């Protein structure tokens, strides 16, 4: 594999040619914020938090998709990017019904963490207060659509790791929602194996363990990467 050198935030970095900017940056200890990206699953490119500036181009590019190239000059933390990231997080809060104080994921939520990281101390946009459902029909898990940010991590985990493809996205635009099978109660799903990978993948408290109470729930997200390494590389990182 040929090696490429590029500059990220002024730091000269070498990376292998097929790596993404995100991989290369992380390898060099540079953190780029992400929400829809999770180790072990394919990239989605939807949350736009990992957008970076690339020298010579006016278009921002998602670090999770964009491959490194020789001589590339990447900026991951400019004032413009910081402001845009803050607006993205604000858009997400305005779009759903996120109430951290009563959420099972309070303290373990990637959206909540992003809000702190981008410096969001209040919402500058209008809350839209959509009417959304909670499905508690599954014996082990539940989904609260009020907390869903449509990152599709559950969809990808179910399809790519478990292979069941119980989840998918239905509807479109602001009417999108994740569904199980034909939008039937999760508990009735004939395809669901109750493996819990969707739960592990979920960045917020949208998919939760039945019986979890406020702020007590951890997702064990690293399990997904553990599974991928075990399955594909036959390496068990315990």
């Amino acid at each position, binding site marked *: 594999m040929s090696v490429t050198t590029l500059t990220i935030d002024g730091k000269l970095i070498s990376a292998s040619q097929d790596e993404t900017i995100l991989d290369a940056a992380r390898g060099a200890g540079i953190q780029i914020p992400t929400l829809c990206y999770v180790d072990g699953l394919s990239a989605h490119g939807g949350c736009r938090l990992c957008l970076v500036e690339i020298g010579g181009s006016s278009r921002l590019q998602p670090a999770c998709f964009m491959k490194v190239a020789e001589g590339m000059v990447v900026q991951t933390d400019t004032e413009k990017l910081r402001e845009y990231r803050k607006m993205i997080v604000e858009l997400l*809060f305005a779009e759903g*019904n996120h*109430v*951290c*104080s*009563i*959420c099972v994921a*309070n*303290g373990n939520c990637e959206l*909540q963490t992003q*809000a*702190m*990281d981008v*410096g*969001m*101390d*209040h*919402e500058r946009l*209008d*809350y839209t*207060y*959509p*009417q*959304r459902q909670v499905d508690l029909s599954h014996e082990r898990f539940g989904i609260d659509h*009020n907390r869903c940010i449509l990152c599709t991590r559950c969809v990808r985990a179910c399809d790519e790791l478990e292979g069941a493809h119980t989840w998918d996205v239905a509807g479109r635009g602001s009417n999108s929602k994740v569904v199980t099978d034909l939008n039937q109660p999760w508990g009735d799903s004939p395809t669901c194996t109750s493996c819990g990978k969707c739960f592990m993948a979920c960045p917020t408290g949208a998919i939760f363990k039945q019986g979890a109470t406020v*702020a007590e729930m951890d997702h064990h997200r690293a399990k997904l990467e553990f599974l991928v390494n075990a399955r594909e590389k036959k390496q068990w990182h315990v």
Partner: protein
Amino acid sequence: MARLKLATVWLGGCSGCHMSFLDLDEWLIDLAQLADIVFTPIMDRKVYPENVDAVLVEGAIANEDHFEFIQDVRERSKLLISFGDCAVTGNVTAFRNPLGSALPVLERSYLELPDLDPHLPVEPGIVPRLLERVVPVHAVVKVDAYLPGCPPPPDRIRLALETLVAGKPLELHGKDIKFG
């Protein structure tokens, strides 16, 4: 230096933020050395005074009294700080918003659940009417700083008050702006 004139206000919230404020315990005595508390729900004063230096507002705007009162508070205060998640985001107080109006909540509470004499409370001048939608404070008046948390932990409140007393701009970062 003139002593800081400080106020606290309680709108559509559970008073938890004020409880957290009281959890500052003995530091409150230190605070009393530095500032005058000129208005607060925990003391008996009916009218919000003029020329308040800083006010911590707990709670969201949920009824017409909140709506009118917050505008008085704004006019008479130099710095208005949204205090806690209800004031900052609407939080639990705004839970009814996805239902589209206040009526479903009232009907559930006063018509469906009671066994005796179900009726909607209508007492003009005594019971303020609910707004159709609960909104955070900054949706109604200009807010100068935000102190999130449900409730904001005492050390966060202390940090904020120390900053105010020192006359520095209040801008919190990182874990100090954690919602919830």
